[in-house]
């Protein structure tokens, strides 16, 4: 297996895009699932499409792989305009559901989807063997997939979408419903592909996945991409470098200038540029107003705060 140097891959990344999506609109009757959504997946990057339930992530992915026809907008892959369907040989797609034949073995599933992607003969055999090694399921190759744990099913599910070695890979919630170990394992698998030059777009509503496992993040809400960039970019353009300080009081208070009152009135939140310089002043003001601080928490800017800043709501797990 050829392993290309990740640095050269990333040098190319800025010059060319793997996917460029503009103004995508998709309506289902009265619901507007995509509302002028746009994003760019650069070559050799891992991009997280982050959004709450119903944001339109799946719809966007389905439009890219030609399973849904957008009402308007354009999709370019590797520099060429994609037709509404077909012409997507360089694309790999891993659905949100376990899209396998439960009554076939892992090997039979891989073999079948390899064939559907046009692999034959030795090439097919090699791809299946590679996939079994890659997923760590070589010893379970001849068991029916319905007997697998959900993490194992997820791995086979991903493998079936990458047998033909696509240049661009779309994964719809690849880690939904699996435990942390299985998630790590899946991300190690994806990293291997990424090192070999595959551009990866994955949807998720797990902040830490987007933060740690991806190069850039697109936040989508109500069918529209509301922010795009690296975590640093997003923080700088939204919450800034300010730290959030959360004070927990012994007794509830009503209002205090410079603070936001949260929850049952026992939590005060303030934003500070420099913790060491500003903290004593804040504590003083609370004490002067009669409050008694029982606990305090300093939060660095995170994707979580970016998300709340942009959408005005928490992202449920």
């Amino acid at each position, binding site marked *: 297996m050829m392993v290309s140097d990740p640095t050269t891959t990333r040098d190319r990344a800025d010059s060319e895009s793997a996917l460029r999506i503009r103004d995508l609109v998709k309506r289902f009757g009265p619901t507007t699932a995509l509302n002028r959504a746009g994003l760019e997946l650069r070559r050799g990057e891992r991009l997280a499409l982050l959004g709450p339930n119903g944001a339109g992530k799946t719809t966007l992915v389905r439009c890219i792989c*030609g399973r849904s026809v957008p009402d308007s907008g354009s999709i370019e892959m590797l520099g060429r305009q994609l037709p509404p369907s077909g012409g997507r040989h360089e694309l790999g797609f891993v*659905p949100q559901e376990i899209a396998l034949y439960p009554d076939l073995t892992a090997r039979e599933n891989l073999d079948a989807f390899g064939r559907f992607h046009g692999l034959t003969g030795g090439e097919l055999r090699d791809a299946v063997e590679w996939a079994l090694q890659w997923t760590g399921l070589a010893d379970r190759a001849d068991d029916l997939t319905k007997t697998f744990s959900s993490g194992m099913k997820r791995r086979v599910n991903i493998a079936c979408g990458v047998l033909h070695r696509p240049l661009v890979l779309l994964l719809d919630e690849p880690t939904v419903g699996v435990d942390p170990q299985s998630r790590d394992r899946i991300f190690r698998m994806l990293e291997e592909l990424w090192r070999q030059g595959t551009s990866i777009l994955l949807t998720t509503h797990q902040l830490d996945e987007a933060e740690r496992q991806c190069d850039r993040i697109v936040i989508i809400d109500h069918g529209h991409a509301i922010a795009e960039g690296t975590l640093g970019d997003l923080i700088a353009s939204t919450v800034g470098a300010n730290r959030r300080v959360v004070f927990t009081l012994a007794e509830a208070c009503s209002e205090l200038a410079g603070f936001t009152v949260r929850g049952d009135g026992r939590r005060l939140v303030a934003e500070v540029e420099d913790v060491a310089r500003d903290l004593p002043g804040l504590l003083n003001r609370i004490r002067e107003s009669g409050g008694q601080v029982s606990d305090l928490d300093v939060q660095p800017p995170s994707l979580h705060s970016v998300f709340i800043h942009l959408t005005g709501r928490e992202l449920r797990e």
Partner: protein
Amino acid sequence: MIGTVVRVGLLRMWHGRTEILLTFVVPIAFFTIFAFIFDEQIGLGKSPRVDIAIVDEDSTELSREFVTALAEWETLRVYAPAGYQEKLFVFTAAEPARELVLAGILPLAVVVPEGWSGSLANPDAQPVGLQLLADSSDPVATQVVTALLRQTSGRIAAERGRQQLEVLLSLSPDEFAESPMSRFGTPAAIEVIDLFAADKANPVVSMYAAGIAVMFLLFGAVGNSGTLLEEEDNQTLDRLLCSNLTMNQLLAGKWLLMTLVGIVQVTIMFAWAQLAFGVDLLGHLPGFAVMTVVTAGAASSFALTLAALCRNRAQLNAVAVILILCMSALGGSMVPRYVMSETMQSFGKITFNAWALDGYIKVFWRNLPLADLVPELSVLAATALVLFGVGRILARRWENS
């Protein structure tokens, strides 16, 4: 607790209204069909008109009177070649009429053999009875016509007897003693000649084998086509259509699989019928093969179209059960079509079960050559093509939403 179980059950039914409606409609539809089949007015009671050919080899005044009287029965429809204008068509020799029965065009031919009236008038002559050339696949028609023959000949004989009695009464005692005793008073002799029964290789069971085989062919195909809906449900269809596979190839593959499975299913069924019940499968292999291929093909197309029409597996199952049972009832898979009224019989022709069964009967019962299967084969092949086309159009909904 129990109340909650009931409540949940009712709620789930409420959310699946279409399927539930169908489960209620199935028995009603089914009952209605059977009611029509057996109903006094539309079905058996106003018995279907029986097509017969009349052969008069005797060609005497009496035989002509007899056939004219016979043709007057409402229940009978006397065969006449196309373009024949006269009131009544009568064959003068039995052979062409016999051919018609053998070919399955008519269930019966009535033959008045030569010497029939002579034997009636002369008690010393060898008795000559009426003959009924019958296709025993339709026992009802045979019985109806036998009864009519008995009545008609009885009436004519009674009339003749009365005339003769008058003549006799006008005779002197000497002349009376000289006159021959006639047979006019004795009941008419009718000989039913079953043109097929002599052939042990074609037991009636071959007809039932075909009926059951076609019905299960349909059920089997629908079970198989339902995989499309499962694939849609778990996004395997998404994955398939994102690969190099096109919708045409996918449907063609499913169709081919269902057809092959169907062919094997029907073949096993007939092989068993041969082993256990003496149906002569090996003796009718070519006819069986072509009939089975086109029937299985038509059943597969039907199943594909149905799957493309339904939103989920439960709906498919409900719709399939109602349709297949109705088609089987109408098409003769459950009750032979000859017991149905004419309206029902022609109505049954809209189902491809009827065409398939007619084809199998031609092969196994009538021993007809392949050329005679052309109408059935054409209808079934056309059904397969048209339904596949419809299914393909309906499948557009899967291509992109």
